[in-house]
């Protein structure tokens, strides 16, 4: 049981940004949730090297980076803590645990399939749970039109940190003179969507 939980937690840590995508699952034909993960997307875009990313996808990803940035409190150990708490409280029956164990054993460690077929159905309710605190909270809304300073209250250091987080998310360096002009989510989206090196 502990091993399964530990495996799940390890998984969660690796892909914190995917959580936001889990909030919008699309049911597939056979009734299972088919979720798109960043890793899958990257695989597709690698095939078409040097192409531009779709703006709405960029917007989603930028919004999620900024949301995570606002939520992350390093003193508490990050976004994962809420989820870990939930898992801790999650009561898993012994036979369900055995089932999970056996499924887990079938897949190679850290494989994407494992991620998609095993973790995702479990993560979805978790994602909903962690999304709940947002409802009715005083936290500023991170929308595509949000202005870093005026709406989100970010100062110069925060903005530079967000730019750095965006660089990590999209895998390319944003030069300082361009970073200076990014003062809203839309600016970031425009810049990234028009940059062929963005992944």
């Amino acid at each position, binding site marked *: 049981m502990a091993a399964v939980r530990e495996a799940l937690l390890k998984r969660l840590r690796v892909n914190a940004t995917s959580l936001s995508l889990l909030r919008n699952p699309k049911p597939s034909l056979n009734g299972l949730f088919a979720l798109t993960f960043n890793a899958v997307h990257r695989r597709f875009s690698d095939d078409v090297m040097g192409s531009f990313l779709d703006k709405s996808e960029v917007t989603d990803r930028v919004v999620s980076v900024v949301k995570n940035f606002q939520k992350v409190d*390093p003193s508490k150990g990050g976004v994962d803590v809420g989820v870990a708490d939930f898992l801790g409280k999650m009561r898993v029956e012994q036979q369900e645990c055995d089932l999970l164990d056996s499924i887990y054993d079938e897949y190679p460690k850290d494989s994407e399939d494992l991620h998609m077929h095993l973790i995702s159905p479990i993560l979805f309710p978790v994602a909903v749970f962690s999304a709940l605190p947002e409802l009715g909270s005083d936290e500023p809304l991170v929308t595509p039109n949000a202005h870093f300073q005026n709406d989100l209250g970010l100062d110069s250091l925060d903005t530079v*940190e967000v730019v750095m987080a965006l660089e990590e998310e999209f895998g390319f360096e944003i030069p*300082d003179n*361009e970073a200076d002009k990014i003062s809203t989510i839309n600016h970031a989206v425009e810049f990234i969507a028009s940059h062929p090196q963005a992944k």
Partner: protein
Amino acid sequence: MNIRCCQRNFSSALPPLVPIQLPSPRETHFWYILPDEVKSVALLNRYSELLSPCERENVNRMSGDQLKKRALLARALVRTTIARCSGVKCNGLLAMRKCLSAKHVFGIYQTNCEINPRSLKFRKNIYGKPEVEWHKDDNFSPPPLHFNISHTSSMIACGVTINAPIGIDVEEKQRKLKNNIIAFAQRYFSPYEVKLLTSISDPEVRRQEFIKLWTLKEAYVKALGKGFSAMPFKTFTIQFRTSTLRRFHLPGNSVSEASEVIVESSNDPGNLTNNCLFALLEVAGSHYAAICVENDEIVRGEANTPMKLTVRKTIPFVEDVCVSGTDAVLPLRGIIEQ
């Protein structure tokens, strides 16, 4: 410039702003407000009346009460501080020419000549740095006042100097970086600074030194007034050097020489530019404040002269406290005379 010497344009219930002696050259004034101490809605409304319609619009554009209050206090602080620092310059003769009636002439000798903070106009220089737009007037020579503001959620500060561009930055001492400090430094700071931070093993000390470096770098860029992109943080290095010069101290003056702060530009390595005075302070026990003043008077090669600094805690129209030399101001770096 509307010099309404003898009128009180704010409600008569409020005391006038006490004018302050203009900073002399090489003197820097640092004013700060703690927003949590300003709770009165009536007072906030008074501040709102000082703002231009455009500024009021900008304040309203901010989301949420906290951000609105912060923006409002920042503008109110700038306007009142500059108005007070400029006021004394307006001499009686000047006022007489402007005032038309005998009643006003007599009035001058009763009240201090003040500049109405509401009448100040501001503009941005070509790089976007805010500055005062003085009204061109035959009889009025505008004081060469420079200012710069900075704010966190818990402190708003304004620095004022004469004849020298100024940049300030304040950050909460407890502020934590969301990214890894070394990764961030490698991305944005100079190699020398990365090495300095990496050599600190205690993560808490490292975090504090990072914040101090950040504020000094921000203050420098803001003093130069050309924006972050014109002066990327990687292109210059902040260094600390222990000052070996003995100085003659006047009794009553307190000069702290923790260490000299110098800037080295990557474009011109080895040429340590000494034309900036720096000060790094811990203010109110809760914030680091960095002040950078450009000063052409300093000849290269000559040791840095101290920054003459006066620090005041204020709630405009309510109180001013000069906190220089008290526990509220702890000099950390730079040669500072309080």
